[in-house]
């Protein structure tokens, strides 16, 4: 494979050209957990949908999922939107995205960093 030539399949082909996931936005550090061990065989299931369901049996962040499956973050989010609509995954958005950071949490971070 000639990696310099870029992907053989255009990256958004597997999302049917969609660049925005259905439903609400998905943060890069949101956590994904699949609701069942495999995605089953739906009419709109791509191999990548199956790969995501399999890889998110244990909670995994969106960005790590993208890196693990070697997909772009944008593509993963579109596919996650599909899986969320199908009820195959749960998404947990980081609370920090909507509220100020709790000082106790910040203290825990500093203590944790010092202990490294």
């Amino acid at each position, binding site marked *: 494979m000639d990696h310099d030539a870029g992907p053989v399949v255009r990256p958004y082909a597997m999302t049917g050209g969609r660049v925005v996931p259905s439903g609400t936005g998905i943060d890069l550090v949101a956590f994904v957990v699949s609701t069942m061990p495999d995605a089953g065989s739906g009419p709109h299931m791509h191999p990548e949908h199956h790969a995501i369901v399999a890889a998110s049996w244990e909670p995994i962040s969106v960005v790590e999922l993208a*890196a693990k499956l070697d997909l772009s973050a*944008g593509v993963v989010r579109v596919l996650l939107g599909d899986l969320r609509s199908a009820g195959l995954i749960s998404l947990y958005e*980081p609370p*920090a995205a909507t509220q*100020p950071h709790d*000082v106790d949490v910040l203290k825990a*971070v500093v203590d944790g*960093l010092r202990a*490294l």
Partner: protein
Amino acid sequence: MASERSDRIPVALKILIAGGFGAGKTTMVGSVSEIRPLQTEEVLTGVDGADDTDGVEEKRTTTVTMDFGRITITDDLQLYLFGTPGQDRFWYLWDELSHGALGAVVLADTRRLADCFPSIDYFEQRGTPFVVAVNCFDTDKRFTTDAVARALDLDPGVPVVLFDAREPVAARNVLIELVEYVARRQLTTAGR
């Protein structure tokens, strides 16, 4: 086995590592991350390149690579470090990255101090707390933190630290400096 999986969802906090090209963003992410630094690509469409002045031709799609790393603080708390894509025209990607971010580290290279001006402007405008970390590649041309703060025209209180991005302990101390600064700001705001 299905019954054995962890049902704990950690809280993830984002810290951005910004600065000019070659300032040490990837190095810093790598030196503090507990996982091998990973990359993800973001495929951007509709980049018109209209504000480019360097002769780069227009593109319909562009792929940018983001470096990221992770530090587990506790079972329930994780820090994610994101190296911001370096070129100005990808800044709208930063908007998403900075949404809900704890804060940012702006890496400065004293040989090219002006390279970090855009990062500083960006975080000042967004109200994202940041510290300036001067990556000292060599010890010959040490600047004082005061001189750097003056040269960058920083608001009073914005921490400036000198460090070596290759040193895990030094890089970790920069993160501690940032989080303590965020906590101080939080307390000041809450006390108003």
